[in-house]
């Protein structure tokens, strides 16, 4: 199968899988609530418990057996914070009760963490499974190269990639650490680690946004959809055809990845800034929404990136493009035939410089080059 095609398909599949998983889990599921054994049931009428019950009922469920005393609170509850006043000036001070926090908690504990974690593991498993599939090189190396990315583009990509990986790591620590790391490391270590993760996450977030903006402007013109891409889509990316389909600088799969990264990146940035500057947000509901959007986009983006990294590492010649900026001419011919033709026409195919050493070594055979140069004169 054509590599680029597989690249695109895996990414699309991963995204669909993500969406299905989330769609399958009812957001306001209350069912699991019932299974939970109360911590310590109190038989006596308990004012705290009553208030609590009232809150739960307002959360959307049918009123259960209503204690007459709860009615006292109804007055308060119905007023919510519309006309309430308080001497306290802190956030949400006038809102006496806000049930959405509890819904958020349920969503987080019962859907986001288990399903999100499963999705991440599933993506990893798919990638690990695929890495056992033996792949033959799809082109033979030549001594001609084409410049694919200029240095600012490379820097833009890696600045975004680097900050994204750091954010992913620290973010996952905050989301899943309590259930995975904490039992292993103990509270003291995990607390310092989580604090470091949080501070690092906070600080690197804006760097990711900065990188995303730069990245967007660097790559957007190459990711505009072309009629070729609709052909690509219609023929399922050439999955069942022998010859790879025509592709320009980027194929449809890569363009899809770009736009998804931009989409999730914007979602992450906007929600991330909302969380960072939550003291400026008007109410708690927005904060809750922001954290949910943030977590869901992050998990989906990480799944995409897992696929992206796998494709880049497992496809011969691809890492060259994003580390040195140069690609083998045959690589371009195989995967990006249209672009290859353009480059060929413009005369941008050049010979590999023999002495360009990748290991930053100082031992460069200059003599050969100078001989080459002087030979002509």
């Amino acid at each position, binding site marked *: 199968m054509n590599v680029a095609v597989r690249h695109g398909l895996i990414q699309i599949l991963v995204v669909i899988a993500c969406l299905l998983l989330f769609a399958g889990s009812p957001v306001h599921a209350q069912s699991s609530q019932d299974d939970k054994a109360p911590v310590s049931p109190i038989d006596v009428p308990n004012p705290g418990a009553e208030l609590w019950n009232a809150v739960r009922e307002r959360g959307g469920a049918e009123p259960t057996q209503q204690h007459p005393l709860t009615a006292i609170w109804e007055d308060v509850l119905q007023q919510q914070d519309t006309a309430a006043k308080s001497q306290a000036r802190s956030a949400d001070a006038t809102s006496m009760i806000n049930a959405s926090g509890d819904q958020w908690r349920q969503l987080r504990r019962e859907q986001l963490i288990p399903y999100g974690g499963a999705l991440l593991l599933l993506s990893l498993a798919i990638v690990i499974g695929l890495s056992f599939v033996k792949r033959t090189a799809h082109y033979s190396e030549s001594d001609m190269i084409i410049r694919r990315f200029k240095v600012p583009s490379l820097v833009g990509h890696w600045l975004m990639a680097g900050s994204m990986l750091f954010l992913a790591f620290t973010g996952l620590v905050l989301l899943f650490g309590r259930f995975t790391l904490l039992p292993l490391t103990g509270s003291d270590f995990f607390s310092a680690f989580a604090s470091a993760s949080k*501070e690092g996450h906070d600080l*690197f977030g804006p760097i990711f946004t900065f990188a995303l903006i730069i990245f967007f402007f660097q790559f957007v013109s190459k990711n505009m959809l072309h009629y070729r891409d609709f052909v690509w889509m219609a023929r399922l990316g050439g999955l069942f055809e022998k010859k790879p389909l025509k592709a320009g600088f980027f194929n449809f799969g890569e363009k899809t990845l770009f736009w998804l990264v931009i989409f999730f990146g914007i979602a992450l940035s906007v929600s991330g800034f909302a969380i960072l500057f939550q003291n400026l947000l008007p109410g708690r509901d927005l904060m809750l929404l922001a954290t949910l959007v943030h977590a869901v986009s992050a998990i989906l983006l990480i799944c995409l990136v897992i696929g992206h990294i796998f494709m880049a590492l497992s496809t011969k010649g691809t890492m060259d493009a994003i580390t040195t900026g140069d690609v083998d001419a045959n690589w371009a011919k195989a995967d990006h035939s249209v672009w290859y033709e353009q480059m060929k026409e413009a005369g941008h195919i050049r010979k590999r410089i023999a002495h*360009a050493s990748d290991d930053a070594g100082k031992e460069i055979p200059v003599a050969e080059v100078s001989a080459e140069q002087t030979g002509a004169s």
Partner: protein
Amino acid sequence: MFTDFIDGPFWTFSVSVFAIGVIWRLISIIRLGVPGDLAVPREDGGAGGMRTILSRFMARPAVRKRALLIVVAGYMFHVGLFALLFFAQPHIDFYVDRFGVPAWAGMPRWLFILTAEIAFAGLIMAWLYRVMHPVTRMLSGIGEHTASWLVFFVMLTGCLALLEQYDSLRVLHFFLAELLLIYFPFSSLMHTFTFAFSRNYTGATMGRRGVDA
């Protein structure tokens, strides 16, 4: 135990290595001497040296046009790091505590954070440029990468310890900063000081010829 060592003897050691090393390096440069210039100067060399020390803080348009990325990244990192080193409140408190100097005004918290963001983005971009650009990739050796990563980790641990609550994080930051201090005199990080020498030598020579170098 570890904390006491890092915060005690090791700190004294690293500061001493830094101070003695830097002074030794500078003296060994000056000791080599500069040959005099017998040509009748157009302008005063001293003024030229001073002018170049200052004027090279601005990148020339000729190079700014061609290498915008590294110029911008360089500015972001250097200005950011300078501000963090000398105007971040925790650092000022530290200097006051350790060296008994009178306190000076620090940056407000929001500016502190913003500066850290800028410095980080600059450092990462500069390092990426180093490994991505064929020229810098060829030129850079282990020394440059060590220096970049050491500075990065010092900054990173500093920002991880932003909550200023965990001693372990503070000590980690402190320890890496001490390693940096020790590494400093033996590396091209010395350009922090020798840049003035170099600019002065060049500026003086060119100044005598009437060129604003």
